[in-house]
């Protein structure tokens, strides 16, 4: 870990301004991802702006019947919120499928959205990695890829986004609210928040430099049966091989988002028209154009089978 300076921000806009002002600055929330990466010198910020004191941890109803989740709401609190459990059960279930109790107590909504990949080569600073060191190459391609992405990949990076929470939020059509260093606020639909790797896998979101997440807003509840199914080698405390977040309505229509398959939570709205026809049809649309490796090709049938089980569960 390199040495760094540290400040506590006094307001969201001031935090964003400070981040823009100081080169090499980063926000720190729960620190459960950032600190690990700093210890390994994968992240080497020279300045940390602590956003924990900004009163961004509230979860409140919005005027149009939705829910506004503060950027600093802890994963544990969000999963336990009565409104979330009732109206957005998908989100509660996704949160509880992630990490461990101790980590969820610290992990925040914004930090979770921005957690970085678990590609093993990203974690070994002796290995080239375009995401860690732009232009150095991708060690994963041709290497150990069992966990990595099958769709939306590029010749520069085949990593996945590891979040469970974000997959549920994608299915729920959440919006990410931010404040810029200039004090301007904007709302980014979650579909546009995470990026595919393309030639710049180090640029993972559409946030501008210094832009601070202040909240994530969930639109009015859509009802239906909510199922989050995370598939993994061990029963707990493991990242998803694949995960399926589904909301299934009585008439068989619904929504599906996938985790563990791409550089972002994966959802293809057009494929959802096939929901009443079943898992095979939906998966064909969801994963059209997938380019798995020899080691992770199993994720394609696994998605279809898991979705089939999810649909059966939702309808029963």
């Amino acid at each position, binding site marked *: 870990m390199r040495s760094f300076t540290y400040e506590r921000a006094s307001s969201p806009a001031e935090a964003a301004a400070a981040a823009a002002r100081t080169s090499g600055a980063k926000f720190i929330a729960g620190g459960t991802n950032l600190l690990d990466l700093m210890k390994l010198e994968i992240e080497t910020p020279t300045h940390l702006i602590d956003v924990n004191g900004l009163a961004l941890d509230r979860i409140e109803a919005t005027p149009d019947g939705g829910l506004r989740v503060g950027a600093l709401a802890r994963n544990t609190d969000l999963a336990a919120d009565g409104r979330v459990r009732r109206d957005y059960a998908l989100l509660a279930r996704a949160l509880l499928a992630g990490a461990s109790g101790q980590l969820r107590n610290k992990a925040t909504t914004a930090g979770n959205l921005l957690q970085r990949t678990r590609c093993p080569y990203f974690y070994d600073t002796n290995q080239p990695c375009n995401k860690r060191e732009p232009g150095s190459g991708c060690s994963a391609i*041709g*290497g150990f890829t069992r966990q990595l992405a099958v769709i939306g990949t590029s010749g520069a990076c085949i990593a996945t986004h590891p979040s469970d929470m974000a997959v549920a939020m994608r299915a729920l059509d959440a919006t990410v609210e931010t404040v810029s260093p200039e004090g301007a606020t904007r709302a980014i639909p979650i579909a546009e928040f995470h990026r595919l790797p393309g030639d710049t896998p180090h640029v993972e979101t559409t946030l501008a430099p210094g832009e601070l997440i202040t909240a994530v807003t969930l639109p009015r509840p859509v009802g239906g049966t909510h199922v989050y199914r995370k598939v993994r080698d061990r029963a*707990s405390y493991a990242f998803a091989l694949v995960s399926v977040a589904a909301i299934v309505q009585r008439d068989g229509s619904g929504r599906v988002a996938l985790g563990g398959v791409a550089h972002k939570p994966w959802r293809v709205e057009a494929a959802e028209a096939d929901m009443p026809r079943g898992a095979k049809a939906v998966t064909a649309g969801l994963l059209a154009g997938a380019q798995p490796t020899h080691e992770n090709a199993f994720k394609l049938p696994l998605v279809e089978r898991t979705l089939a*089980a999810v649909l059966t569960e939702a309808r029963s």
Partner: protein
Amino acid sequence: MKFDTPATTNPIDQLKVVGKPVDRIDGPLKTTGTAPYAYERHDVVPNQAYGHVIGSAIAKGRIASIDLTDARRVPGVLAIVTADNAGKLGKGDYNTATLLGGPEVEHYHQAIALVVAESFEQARAAAGLVRVDYVRAEGVFDLAAIKDGMEPSEAAGADSEVGDFAGAFASAPVQLDATYTTPDQTHAMMEPPASIAAWRGDRLIVWTSNQMIDWTVGDLAKTLGIPKDRVTLASPFIGGGFGGKLFLRADTVLAALGARAAGRPVKVALTRPMVANNTTHRPATIQRIRIGATPDGRITAIGHESWSGNLEGGKPENAIQQTRLLYAGANRLTGKRLGVLDLPEGNAMRAPGETPGLMALEIAMDEMAHKLGIDPVEFRILNDTQVDPEKANRPFSQRQLVECLRLGADKFGWNKRDRRTGQTRDGRWLVGQGVAAAFRNNQVTESAARVRLDNQGIVTVETDMTDIGTGSYTIIAQTAAEMIGVTLDKVVVRLGDSNFPVSAGSGGQWGANCSTAGVYAACVKLREAVARNAGLNPVEAAFSDGRVSAAGRSVTLAEAADGAGIVAEDVIEFGDLAKKYQQSTFGAHYVEVGVDVATAEIRVRRMLAVCAAGRILNPKSARSQVIGAMTMGVGAALMEDLVVDKRHGFFINHDLASYEVPVHADIPSQEVIFLDETDPISSPMKAKGVGELGLCGVGAAVANAIHNATGVRVRDYPVTLDKLLAGMPEV
């Protein structure tokens, strides 16, 4: 004391303390966080500086140059040790690659430098600024690719052939010929290797975490080129070792070198990402098993060949070990081949040999039973042998494998199992049951101890035996209490210090039996001295309730100790009983799994182990050993896999997020039954080991249960869902 005839009745047989499920005497220290583990021994020596190890970024080649300029400028940096400035170093007997590499690099993350600074953070930050230029060399990293080129060699050991294997196999009415693979595995112990070193003039004191004190003192002295008697080593508590701490490793050598360079004590711990590639690991194997049998299930031919790799000069994984002894069969062939791989050093991990060997053999037995249409429990019983199958005049000292299998089948409800595969459904789960035999040799090796009785009636035992979480403190205390006739609270046990008599140490599940036998020997001597001191006839003297009595006279031990106290020391030495008899431990593992019908996720539902391992010195700590081992077996079966990057030659998943071991949710109900057994051939304790037995065969029992659940036979560990998907029913 020489142990060369089977034990007869002795004071241990009273079983007033030995054999009781007493709590571990060091438990409160551990639960209150006051047990002194190596890295936290802030009090043993003042002014400790911190060392951070730098590992090689390449697997094979040479260091062209190291630039320390920027690192030296970091505030707090005291010294940087590299091969350039460390002086001439020797190599220990037990490590293959050198523990401080450079300029030659022998494996990935081989230590090439140590940065010493005032704080851990400074040392780590400075380590990040050391610039190393390497010249890479071609390496060999792919076991499967070199397998067919491996020739018989001295290093691999001679093949063993009995009868006419080829002929008998070719003519066997029922045959199995299958190849199995087991991956590299890392010990993943909770406490990473850690040491503090301090020089006092030309004497070196090391506080560390190590299973084998005497080996490590010797190798440290040899590496540093100093006499052995100038090295003192203490390792009273060890946060798990599993064989990864049997030997001198880089943390200890570098702490010593760092302390010398910095002129003050230095502490070093390996960071988690270094553990997999810097330390030893269990080597991967490829195993071919051939079994020929008559239609009624008698094995006529059994062959087991194993291929593994290691660094030049390293040893093979002895995966065929159990096959030489476990089942009958007149015609036998076992052999190992060893290839050179430029991967990190392979060496012992809990039940080396038998763990990967049984993972293969016990699937093969299941496959064969399936082919024969015989119940797999019955098939194993049918082929039991009471003698060494390679030497018919050499009996087993004790062998209750059949009893373990039968009792286990009964307790587990084996007769309710559907022998057809894929038949049992419980909601979303396909349910199956599997069985495997457990087998691990019982090794005996000399072990010494010193026992002192003081004028308060307190018995103090000193031996360099280690407690790696196994319960050594407790069973040694139980042994001394039984022998001297006192309660446990009157016994003090001091372990893991090179100032104490040399013990068997903790490895190969020999520790419990041998170290307590050494304590027994010392206690026999102490009893004589105490009786004599009290003016009693040593032959008649009885020790109980804190008193020694004979011929109607009785004195308290405190009185008998007589002011200065009485000290006795002895060593247990084993004669040739181990040659005349085959000493092994046996068990049966029964496992039930559920396989998700859609995702093929595998979850263990319940496990039972029945063990026959001689006298169980403490059923509570023995049970802990076995359930821990069963858990490790689940890891081996379902998830543990150090993945080799075959292009660059290293284990890529070198942290605990990517090298998965079981978590609590993976381990539901576990039951352990010990047969009531004593083995008078093994030692005066009549005990054997259980710490490794509990792991042997578990992996195969899980794999066999998966087959029973799904009908899919996976021969490549770990058995993960991707290997099952194609064979799962439509959803």
